[in-house]
């Protein structure tokens, strides 16, 4: 599907979705309330059929006090991409899991939890995945510090 067509289809599914500029592939920001329902429709709508979650990660905008989730979607049927951005409050980053839409999301969400401390509602097994189980803090947050870390000399 062409980019314009893709964007208007997504907007017809979710009117609150806004287009992001300065990206090389179609990218939309959507409100966090719409996440599980919209994602399921993105997968199931025959014209879209985003059947693959290539990557799920997060960006820590700590100056603006928000964490932005990124879902990179791909359709193996139509061969088109879509990036979905969801903005969360940094102090209370809670969103509903999409692990029942794409199974792979289960581990990718565990990694985002591990690194950014995003909490996923109705995730089947939200544990740390890379770091030790008793690790304190979330190291990819920009203000993370621990006693092992070495500060760069000024």
């Amino acid at each position, binding site marked *: 599907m062409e980019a314009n067509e893709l964007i208007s289809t997504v907007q017809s599914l979710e009117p609150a979705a806004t287009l992001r500029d300065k990206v090389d592939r179609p990218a939309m920001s959507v409100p966090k309330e719409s996440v599980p329902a919209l994602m399921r429709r993105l997968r199931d709508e025959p014209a879209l059929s985003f059947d693959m979650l290539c990557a799920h990660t997060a960006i820590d905008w700590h100056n603006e006090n928000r964490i932005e989730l990124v879902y990179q979607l791909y359709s193996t049927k139509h061969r088109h991409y879509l990036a979905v951005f969801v903005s969360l409050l940094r102090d209370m980053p809670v969103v509903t899991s999409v692990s029942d839409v794409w199974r792979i999301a289960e581990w990718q969400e565990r990694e985002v939890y591990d690194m950014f401390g995003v909490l996923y509602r109705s995730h089947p097994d939200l544990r740390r995945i*890379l*770091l*030790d189980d008793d690790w304190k803090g979330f*190291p990819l947050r920009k203000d*993370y510090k*621990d006693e*092992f*870390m*070495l*500060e*760069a000399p000024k």
Partner: protein
Amino acid sequence: MGLITEKLPGIIEPVPGGSVLLSSMDAVINWARSNSLWPLTFGTSCCAIEVMMASGAARHDLARFGAEVTRPSPRQADLLVIAGTIVRKMAPRLKLLYEQMAEPRYVIATGSCAISGGPFIYNNYSTVRGADEIIPVDVYVPGCPPRPEGFFYGILQLQRLIREGESIRRPGERRKPVLAALPAGITLDQIQAELRELLESKAQVKLGASATAGRG
């Protein structure tokens, strides 16, 4: 081998001429050891591609130095090439692997990561700042990643260290590591001048002499 290295020194040493015999045995044993290093396949990140794969492949051919028999088990290996970043979660495993290797065992740290933490030294929550914080390292090969030639130079240094180093009288004692760091107060110009001098003096090669000298 165990009999020779453990029992023999005590028996032969008191005999007249025994220490001479022991020294020549040292030379033979060290020569054998240095030419049959069996590395452990242990690559943790990008350096592994250069050091383990490119060096072992046909173009560079690690087999020329007798070190191509990579083993996936530490019990059959005697050279641990730390090729890549060591993270804090990996550190206990690295130590375990090292301890499982049979004596005498040698360690080469390749790449900035294994030497000092390299590109990840500051503001990083995971990277160990140098493999020598965990296990003793014999030879450091600098680079990010080192070229296969650099790694071969490291292996040759290790072979030199093995040949000159250990004695069966005092197993486990080695010469100091061949350090990659430059002594303080040396400038680039001095290095270049010295290299130029070396290259010019080595520019003339007597073919007959160099063929035998190269065998070492």
